[in-house]
């Protein structure tokens, strides 16, 4: 590529603070109806996101990838903002931990089904989804 893509502001924000806030060439987010890729000077956009993988292309060689939970995406005036309920950098995914989370949540869900526990079913399903998501993303990058 002769000329580099122009950069624009990208932010990935969770309730526990911004996971990424800086300049990038492109950002790809898991839209509810399919992946959405956004470059600089994209038209204003508002979209919903499902749990999946969010990729921020800093330049041709450097790509940051995050396992993200469900959320929302907004593009305005050369600024893209992804609001998600959780985001983990794929390089920092702890497989063991994610697997343990998954096991714990599944076991709890079985107890709920058996009427032995009063834990919140919906919360458990969310935990399972997020754990599976982390495992899926890390599995794809390592294998």
């Amino acid at each position, binding site marked *: 590529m002769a000329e580099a893509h122009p950069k624009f502001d990208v932010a990935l924000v969770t309730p*526990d603070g911004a996971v990424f806030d800086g300049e990038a060439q492109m950002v790809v987010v898991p839209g509810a109806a399919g992946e959405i890729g956004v470059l600089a000077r994209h038209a204003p*956009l*508002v*979209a919903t996101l499902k749990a999946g993988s969010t990729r921020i292309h800093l330049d041709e060689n450097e790509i940051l990838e995050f396992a993200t939970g469900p959320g929302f995406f907004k593009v305005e005036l050369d600024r893209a903002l992804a609001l998600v309920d959780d985001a983990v950098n794929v390089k920092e995914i702890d497989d063991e931990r994610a697997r343990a989370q998954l096991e714990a949540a599944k076991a709890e869900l079985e107890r709920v089904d058996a009427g032995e526990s009063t834990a919140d079913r*919906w919360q458990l399903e969310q935990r399972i989804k997020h754990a599976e998501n982390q495992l899926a993303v890390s599995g794809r990058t390592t294998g």
Partner: protein
Amino acid sequence: MASVQDLKRRIQSVRNTRKITRAMELVAAAKLRRAEQRITALRPYAETMAELIAGVGRASSSVRLPLLEQRQAIETVALVPLTGDRGLAGAFNAQIMRRAFALERSLQVEGKTVRWVAVGKKGRSTLVFRRRDLVGEYLGFTDRPAYEDAQAIAHRVSELFTSGEVDRVTLIYNTYVSALTQRVTEQDVLPISPDILETDEEERATDALRGDFIFEPEPEEILRRLLPVYVETQIYRALLESTASEQGARMTAMRNASKNAGELIDTLTLRMNRARQAEITQEILEVVAGAEALT
């Protein structure tokens, strides 16, 4: 009068207590700092969320979503007091429960029914002790609430609201003003106030500059997904505020306890020295009296 030995033992015991209260004060101060940071960290998310809702709300043609439904007759109200899992925080938990029960009384006078959702072990045990029926309980995380905890609570109260089991959901919690001050606050989280969909003239102007947004899917559909997340965010903020307040209250309570212990040690030491002096004087008198008797 207590003997020197007794006083010595008591002083030692008060000293040990002071060590504990001092340590707890330091721990609370560290946790308070962390809680404050988390409130700050949430701000960009919450603000963007509010902007997004206003923007999408403007774009939606008709907004008739269940979470926005303002019911004509409020018959049942869910009260959600946010308390701590542990005590030793001064009047922190008691204040919340006192306000909650006062609210319950005034609602019952108006002929409304009250349902309870307990958050925090302290609140739960008070409610169980007073034989209130709980429609939900969330325990064991008030030291460090996670977003998932807020999601669980939000999901439960939204369910209660949309199923028509309750017509209003009110949070009672301490808002964090400073380490020394916490304010007990009542906040209606459901139904969602239609105000959040409205924007002022200034925002409308900047919005026009940005041109029309592409919505994917339809704005109404996005709003349908945004509103539950808005409730989660509101509850998460309340949980964080409550945690910061709890640590602030504990820090103050422990500081006072350490101070009291210091004063107690001073008084006891004085008393011990007096007792020892009296003992010595007594002994001298006895020796002198004995010597006199011999001559």
